[in-house]
């Protein structure tokens, strides 16, 4: 465990020094600011605009971070041969992977917290009763959980392929997972058996990111239970992250440098 934490700490330190992270954070804050500025385009629905635009910005920034951190950290270390130095120490490949994942997750958490403060402030300002419901915090936590799955996906893909492929494939997973219900519809309605099978498999295998989308609940003032997020949604995240990391380890373990 100590080895995992040490690698996580090193990964976190390395990540927050990257300028690209600062750019992403500024972009996220800009998106939230833009959501407030543009909300005047949506007369009578300013608050709904801020929620939709702000949370979507959160999701996309999460995707960007997952792709940048997950897709580049391992291939870069392999290219620069840093991985040899680490793995010659008494550190297993599983510990290395988990350490990398935890470090990147911590970096994303810090960015999300900073953006979250700005988003909650924007929400409080625009919400007619100046009331911040529990559902808002749960929505932000749900976005973070979704980002964790994307990060694990990027880490898994980066163990077997180049960074470029990882970026494209993680983006594909995000798109298919975000429109899971349409992929499911295609698997039920398509004309070709082959296409139906392909869409059916995609709908089942790729994580369903609509499980994490609480925008509709926020927009319609629907209360969301903490138990729902802490139970099945967190469980779903743990299951997917564990599965992706196990697969990543199986492939990374076979890899010869």
């Amino acid at each position, binding site marked *: 465990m100590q080895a995992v934490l040490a690698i996580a700490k090193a990964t976190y330190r390395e990540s927050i020094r990257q300028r690209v992270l600062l750019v992403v954070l500024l972009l996220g804050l800009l998106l939230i600011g833009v959501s407030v500025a543009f909300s005047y385009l949506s007369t009578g629905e300013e608050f709904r605009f801020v929620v*939709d635009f702000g949370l979507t910005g959160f999701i996309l920034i999460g995707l960007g971070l997952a792709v940048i951190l997950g897709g580049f950290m391992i291939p870069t270390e392999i290219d620069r041969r840093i991985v040899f130095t680490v793995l010659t120490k008494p550190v297993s490949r599983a510990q290395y992977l988990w350490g990398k994942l935890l470090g990147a997750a911590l970096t994303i958490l810090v960015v999300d917290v900073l953006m979250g403060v700005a988003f909650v402030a924007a929400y409080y300002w625009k919400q007619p009763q100046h009331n911040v419901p529990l559902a808002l915090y749960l929505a932000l936590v749900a976005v973070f959980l979704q980002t964790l799955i994307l990060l694990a996906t990027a880490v898994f893909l980066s163990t077997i392929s180049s960074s470029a492929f990882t970026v494209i494939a993680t983006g594909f997973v995000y798109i298919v997972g975000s*429109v899971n219900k349409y992929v499911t519809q295609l698997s039920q309605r398509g004309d070709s058996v082959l296409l139906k099978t392909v869409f059916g498999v995609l709908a089942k295998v790729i994580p369903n990111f609509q499980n994490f989308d609480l925008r509709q609940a926020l927009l319609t003032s629907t209360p969301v239970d903490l138990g729902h997020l802490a139970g099945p949604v967190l469980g779903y995240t743990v299951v997917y992250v564990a599965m992706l990391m196990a697969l990543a380890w199986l492939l990374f373990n076979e890899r010869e440098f």
Partner: protein
Amino acid sequence: MNSSVTKRLAWVLVVAAVALQFPLQESIDRYRNTIRVIMYPDARDTDIAQAQARFTELGLQPKVVSARGADGRPTKAVLAPLPRAEWSATHEKYIRGLHSVPRVNQVVAGINEQGIPLDQVQQLNIQDVGIIVMAALIGGFRKSAANVLWLQNEENWHSGKGYRTIPLARAVTMLDPNFVDAWVLTCWHLAYNMSVEAKSPDEAASLIAQGLKFAEEGIPWNSTTYEIYQEIGWTYYDKLQNYERAAEYMKQAIEHRHPTYLERMIAHSYERLPEIDKALKWYHVSQQKYGEADQTARGAIETITERYLNAWQLFRRGDYDGAERQLESDWTAACERCSRAGRTLPSSTIYLHFRARIAEARASAAKGGERAKLYEQAFSAWMAAAKENPSDRLARRRVLTLADNFGWKDRVPKGYNDVGLPENWAKDLAPEQRGRSKPAPAPAKKS
């Protein structure tokens, strides 16, 4: 640990994770497809039992749990998970009427973002909006894309490209189906603005019907608010003067939080038909609900009672001659009272409608040759009502229907319609639009 054992353990973990994913997904779906009725903190057990009974009647298995209301106070909630077969459907039938249960604070139709059927995507004009729609569905900036399209829609409308309203509005509502104004304003554009520019009554009727159909599509997404029901109800009331349908929709609107005039709108609808007993009932409902503040209802109860109630009771008993005599006498007395008091005479619409209804009821009860003669009287009565008030579309519709049924089309003026077009609607059209051949161009003058 042995490497092969670790590998096996990793594979077991992968298989277990795949297997676990399905029940977890099922649990999330069940949560997202549960209807929640949140009661006020002071709700009685009988109120909660009533909410439960509504669900039980529909075959659901509700349960009562502790919850917090929108204001954060502890209260009770009734949860009703939907069966799997209903997960992809709209939840409207399950939530309709729940607001009429006493002490219900909030009805939540599940947080499942109901899937937009793919056939709706196919209806879009792909060149115009399809790409934006698909990008927004995937990218997630749905509300923002909907706003941009809505602004474009407004611009199109004000620059005379009203025909592009429908595909754009459809794209907007697809991106943001909870954008109530998009459903309501598109219905209004079609039924009120585009229909008056129609080239024929048939086209105008079709545009009004399209507007109503469009708004109807928005109900499942916004069935917990009154606005769309009210818009449809108002279009039936004002534009089509189909007062029965208007009352139906207004009744659905008042099941949700609504402005105070809606109960009166139901009463006005019945009054104009007329259905005097129903009108009185709804004026009383409005007065009881809003008390002395509702002066309109108080005044309406007085005038209806003195002008029409006696005649209405005779009419309901089938005494049509008595009803007609009573109506004439009460109406004359009411007009005289107004003259004596120096007030303007009351609008004769309801009186004329009532006369025509008596004539129609008498005709429908008659047999043989007498029947046609009596229907002719009903036709004249409706015609008189329409002549008295040219915007009386109920009277015009009855005139057209009777003329159609009895072959009296020659008695109906040319261009007569019940959709609000002027009778000379064909006058301003170009010859080819009236179905005539285009005149040959004039020969060029010699220089």
